[in-house]
């Protein structure tokens, strides 16, 4: 009996985590027109309504990752099934120059238990990495995995080409 609330909590929190991540992905791929999308994640069905702020992108960038997304705030509300009924969670994402600069999540559950889990999730979920373009950050050096040599790169390219030819 004592075990069950922890297991249940873990399951609900991971469902919320998946939901939030999927919502973020849905929001990030939405275009500037109002769209209604159906997203299926396992047992949960979600619909995402997206709104856009029609702020023009003032600075043109050559970064391939902007992909023409407009600056502004995007909101997505997802619904999921819980033992207390169908509940909602809203995620808001701010896009600037093709990069997510802020995000927040708002609880929308009406069932008190779901509401508790949602706010626990929102206050405690682990932060996700967020990339900023190197050109926009003042840096002395960069640390990551080591660069590879030309010989290594050439060999890798060969193998990848062969793999493509074989398929």
């Amino acid at each position, binding site marked *: 009996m004592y075990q069950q609330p922890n297991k249940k909590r873990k399951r609900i929190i991971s469902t919320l985590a998946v939901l939030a991540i999927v919502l973020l992905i849905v929001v990030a791929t939405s275009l500037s027109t109002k769209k209604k999308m159906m997203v299926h994640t396992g047992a949960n069905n979600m619909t995402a309504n997206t709104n856009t702020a029609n702020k023009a992108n003032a600075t043109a960038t050559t970064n391939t990752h902007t992909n023409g997304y407009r600056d502004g705030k995007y909101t997505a509300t997802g619904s999921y099934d819980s033992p207390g009924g169908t509940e909602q969670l809203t995620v808001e994402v701010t896009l600037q120059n093709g990069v997510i600069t802020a995000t927040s999540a708002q609880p929308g559950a009406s069932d008190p238990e779901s509401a508790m889990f949602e706010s626990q999730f929102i206050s405690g979920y682990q932060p996700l990495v*967020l990339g900023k373009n190197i050109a926009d950050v003042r840096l002395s050096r960069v640390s*990551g*995995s*080591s*660069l590879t040599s030309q010989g290594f790169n050439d060999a890798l390219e060969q193998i990848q080409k062969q793999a493509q030819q074989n398929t």
Partner: protein
Amino acid sequence: MHLSKSKSRPSKTPSPPVPCVEWTFSALGTQWWIGVYEPLRANILIHLKKIIAERIELFDRTYSRFRPDSLVARIANKAGTYRMPPDGARLFAFYRRLYKLSNGLVTPLIGQVLVDAGYDAHYRFTPRALTKPPLWDDVLAIHDTILVAKQPILLDVGAAGKGYLVDIVSELLARNGVTQFCVDASGDLRSQGLQGPLRIGLEHPDNPDQVIGVANLQHGAICGSAGNRRAWGVYHHIINPQTLESVRNVRAVWTTAHSTLIADGLATALFFVPPDCLASHFRFSYCIVYGNGTVHMSKRFPATLFTIGNV
């Protein structure tokens, strides 16, 4: 490598130090950069470049599994008793500690696993069936600089070797009168005597055009590890010797420590064990990006992360 253009915005913090002299070269299969933050006479610079190149060559000729004339290549061919150069004692003593603390997951005996997975001296990248490496004590006995190989065995010291060499090069600079410098072996770097912190970008493991945060380093070492570059087929170069699969639940690790040897070795170890296993044995801080994209930074890790969600 990535000196970014400054934008015209008011800076709240002082600018990071800028080197007076800097140069790059290839070594250990990657690109190195050295910056000296004080004036350096031309003849001293020439001398430094020479002795550094010679010292690196000595290291490579000993520990590289990518050349047929190395000590490692000889040990791979024939059992026997070998004498390592003096630097071997410290390197393998550290490896022994990591081996014990990781229950064998960090091991210098990973060489054959990497080769079988395809990452061999010829970069064939054609995987064969993998076999678990033997236990250290079954095949190796190392005391100080004496290495006894009970059978031919292929060693790979990539988990900490480059970091160690950064320390060795740093010592060379210091011994030759250079007091303010930074040695950057492609992301494993050590700085000493600087008058302000360097801003070190933490490269996004999924996108080399981006950083996920900025670390400050004035005196000490920072190392970064990720499986994004040395990757082929289903593998990348950080392979678990028990599961014989490349690690996926950890995507990138950074560590800071007093020495680059330790920072480098721990950065690898954190792909296999949680920080708690190492915390009471070494003085270090860390930042880990997990497979699900979440990031966790220890309290003392000297960085600001850009994150979605509370840090």
